[in-house]
């Protein structure tokens, strides 16, 4: 990649992007769809060479990129995984992403990884711990991280701080930014009975650098239902509504359409991105 290409394509506009998945590589290269930017899962590019890098290099030459991690395990009490950080750092140097993110979660303890975004108790202890960890990771990477609010399916007895306050405190202490996943707010609010809109209103607008949108699944039991963040369908109407309220409150932000399971044709994702762009555009006109 030339310096010139990097310069032109290393900022992400306040428009819709799409999660780039391997099944769509060739179509993206051949058709160059009008998507403002792409986001990939960092860990999918932790291999040394071959097809993933072949395609990402070529797609990166034409679009801005965001690296979204799922495996840094920032909330874990284990030491930060240096190998993981080093791989991420190399990836950042190679692809010059505009944004780098991971989650408010943990995934490993005693060296065993569960490959999931596991919930944290929202306590002073956890806050101090994860703030230090984010600080350490940011120092190592030499850049700011965006931290995403999780979808959760349980709460801990000892949680004493509402999630959104925990997030705000984390931003203040570590200097990280927020990746606000509107679907996750909706899922967690429904599962735990808090007010999603109030959560969004409590978020400091200046800290939000990116928004995520995705589809979820309603898991039905005989005695009730719970929402699962499956990323396997279109964004539901209620989440679009919440998204509209979100950008009313925050202003326009780069907005990602995420889809991981039962991946549809690229055209479906482009349709979702157009929908987000439409809502963003309305705010531009209004502003």
């Amino acid at each position: 990649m030339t310096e010139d290409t990097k310069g032109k394509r290393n900022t992400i506009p306040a428009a819709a992007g799409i999660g780039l998945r391997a099944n769509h590589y060739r179509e993206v290269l051949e058709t160059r769809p009008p998507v403002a930017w792409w986001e990939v899962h960092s860990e999918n590019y932790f291999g040394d060479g071959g097809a993933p890098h072949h395609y990402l290099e070529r797609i990166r030459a034409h679009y801005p990129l965001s690296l979204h991690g799922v495996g840094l395990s920032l909330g874990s009490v284990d030491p930060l995984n240096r190998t993981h950080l080093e791989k991420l750092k190399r990836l950042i140097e190679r692809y010059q992403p505009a944004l780098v993110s991971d989650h408010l979660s943990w995934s490993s303890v005693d060296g065993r990884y569960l490959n999931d975004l596991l919930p944290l108790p929202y306590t002073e202890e956890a806050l101090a711990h994860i703030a230090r960890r984010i600080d350490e990771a940011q120092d190592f990477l030499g850049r700011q991280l965006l931290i995403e609010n999780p979808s959760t399916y349980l709460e801990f007895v000892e949680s004493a701080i509402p999630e959104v306050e925990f997030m705000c405190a984390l931003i203040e202490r570590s200097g990280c930014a927020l990746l606000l996943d509107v679907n996750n707010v909706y899922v967690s609010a429904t599962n735990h009975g808090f007010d999603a809109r109030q959560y969004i209103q409590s978020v400091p607008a200046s800290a939000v650098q990116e928004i995520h949108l995705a589809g979820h699944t309603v898991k039905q039991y005989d005695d009730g239902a719970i929402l699962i963040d499956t990323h396997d369908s279109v964004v539901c109407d209620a989440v679009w509504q919440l998204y509209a309220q979100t950008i009313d409150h925050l202003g326009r932000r780069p907005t990602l359409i995420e889809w991981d399971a039962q991946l549809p044709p690229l055209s479906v994702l482009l349709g979702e991105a157009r929908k987000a762009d439409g809502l963003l555009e309305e705010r531009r006109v209004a502003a």
Partner: protein
Amino acid sequence: MSLRDTQRGFSAGVLSDDVAAIRARIRPGRFGAERHLQIYRNNVYASLTDALAAIYPVVARLVGDDCFRGCGHQYVRQAPPTSGNLHDFGERFADFLASFEPVRTLAYLPDVANLEWQWHRAFHAADAPALALDILAKVAPEQYAALHFRLHPSAQLVASEFPLLRIWQANQPNADTDDVVDLSEGGVQLLIARRDIRVEIEALGGGEYALLRAFARGQSFADAVVAANAAQAQFDLTASLRQRVLDQTIVGFNSN
């Protein structure tokens, strides 16, 4: 309860169904604590079994989906990932299958798994520039014996007493389902390597397999040739070397 205790208890509850430590720490919500935890357990096992299925599609097709899920579940319990880089997960699946009672009678299964693991490694291995034949031509003939040839980072050599390549081919997504592989067809020696970005599997003659294996082990050209000739009478060394430089199985050499 400290954060460490919470995470240890949670992990035990998910991986080993041991909920003693964590149950009382989960706030009764919409449902009881255990059902909330069960959602995470489902997600963890499903995502890790899916990761295995992506690396081992032929094993999955051979044993069927239900059996594969069972194998995956047990493997996750025994050998959960040790890093957040999922490319590393599943390395010991072939050994696991060799000792896992429900599939132990399928003697060829561990070899199939090994082939798929090597395919996976080849897929993600580093790129390497080709070796130009004329560079090789400039080496003085009297120096050949001491050369050490370097294989492409993706190149893997796999031997099996089963007709592994036929099994693999007959279980590709577009394969003819009537194709029956006779397990007594005999063994194979295979080269797995990436050509550009495509991983290819190729059956080798005994001489070429011995030659490339000697290169892979860092043996000198002289020793590799001895091994190749011992493995196969009338082995055509010149043709083999030329082809393997052209198809980028061999990508370099050191003269020390």
